[in-house]
């Protein structure tokens, strides 16, 4: 009886583990897309609205889902605080702080941090170019993330169950 219970527990844990991994593969392209949307919105605020950056970040954060909204809000709050941060520092800190909560990888983190070192310190044309560049890079990451999703999502779902089954068989 106890053995059966243990075996069920292992099976359950393995399945969950597999599903969790699969979910990460599914979440990455979705979050990349959301990041791109956020940057597009920022592009509009900068390019057409001439909105000052802190306000543009706050406004954009209201339109994107978690955890990205927190990143934008944190970056904006860092500027308002009296720590004397430059925009680059505030932005980088915000990106790093929320990164653990996202399914995104270091490639896209590097893209965002690089973008942070250019935002706000050049004329409109230049800003739009930098944002476009970041969008293109994120799109490339999104494409590869989709491929990964197609390749590994179902694999991980079944792999979790199968590993659990293997463990159970080995133990019995």
């Amino acid at each position, binding site marked *: 009886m106890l053995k059966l219970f243990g075996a069920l527990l292992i099976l359950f844990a393995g399945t969950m583990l597999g599903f969790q991994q699969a979910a990460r593969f599914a979440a990455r392209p979705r979050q990349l897309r959301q990041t791109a949307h956020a940057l597009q919105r920022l592009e509009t605020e900068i390019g057409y609205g*001439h909105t*000052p950056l802190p306000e543009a970040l706050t406004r954009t954060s209201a339109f994107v889902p978690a955890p990205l909204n927190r990143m934008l809000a944190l970056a904006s709050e860092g500027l308002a605080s009296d720590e004397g941060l430059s925009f680059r520092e505030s932005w980088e800190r915000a990106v790093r702080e929320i990164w653990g909560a996202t399914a995104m990888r270091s490639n896209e983190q590097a893209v965002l941090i690089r973008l942070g070192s250019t935002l706000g310190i050049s*004329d409109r044309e230049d*800003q739009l170019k930098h944002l476009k560049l970041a969008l293109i890079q994120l799109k490339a990451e999104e494409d590869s993330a989709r491929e990964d999703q197609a390749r590994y999502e179902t694999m991980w779902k079944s792999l979790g169950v199968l590993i659990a089954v293997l463990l159970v068989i080995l133990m019995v």
Partner: protein
Amino acid sequence: MLSRITHLLPLELKAILERLPAQVQEQLEEIRIREGRPLEIGMGGQSRFAANDGTLLTQAGGAYKPTADLCRKLLERMTNYSLYAMEEELRRGFITVAGGHRVGLAGRTILDNGSVRGIREIGAFNIRIAREVPGSAAPLMPKLLDRSRKTVRSTLVLAPPQQGKTTLVRDIARSVSYGLWGGGDAASWPGRKVAIVDERSELAACVRGIPTFDIGPRSDVMDACPKAEGMMMLLRSMSPDVIIADEIGRPEDGEAIREASHAGVSVIATAHAYDAEDARGRPVLRSLLEEGAFSLIVELRRTPSGIMHRVLTAEACVRGWAAREPTAVVPRLAEDAAPLFSGLMRGDAMC
């Protein structure tokens, strides 16, 4: 004075400036920041270099030198992290920040068809601290009155930069608007409607359209508007009794002032010129004075004991010029008409 702008400065710079002697902090007029070169402080018309520990030096050696990082942070803060939203300001070469302080910028310009489109690689900043000195126009007001019309006469204020022109006309605006005519029989006159064209956002220091300086209850401000256009707009829309404009000098400004003076509106304007004689060399000012668009000229001069002003009538001044032209027939009128230096405005330093 320093406390008014500290929120704009990076922490490192703020710390150094806060170490300056209290009296210096109070008299601070200009902070000049140049990347990699000594930090310069302007106060009471003098210039000093500031060292890391807040002592003031007359020589540049040993002074604090701002780093590239500090300049970048300063620029970010001055522009609210949004250089892209400041294109018009960059084209003009300065930014006006909340509180009316003007930050002049220098760097490498970007050209577009031969005209300046903006500045990039900004390496030098000049922070001019604005201050209002309520009452600084009080000694002058009685001399500007037009008793028949119960208002002020059209006046041109002349002085080199940094002598207190803007502070003075701001206080004239306030006085006219409140009806502070300076006592005597004028005490009972009502205030007049004042329209201010504030191209550089220095007179009223508007933040989102609301003046931050006290410019009186009957004043309307057209903020960040080209003077000539602004004067015409206000003339048509706000039915002013007095129009106030800062730093005139372009031909279109002259055109607008002519228009206003023929519409029965008094114009009070400032211009960069050492004195009336100097103004003669500026075609726009000269023709305005010759045509009688201004009836008075006020010259400002900063002296160690305060700011001196001298009021002369435009008519006398123009006659003086004519007298010195080779064909003139009235040789000595200039001396007869030249009034003396009068009134000492104790506004301490003004910008």
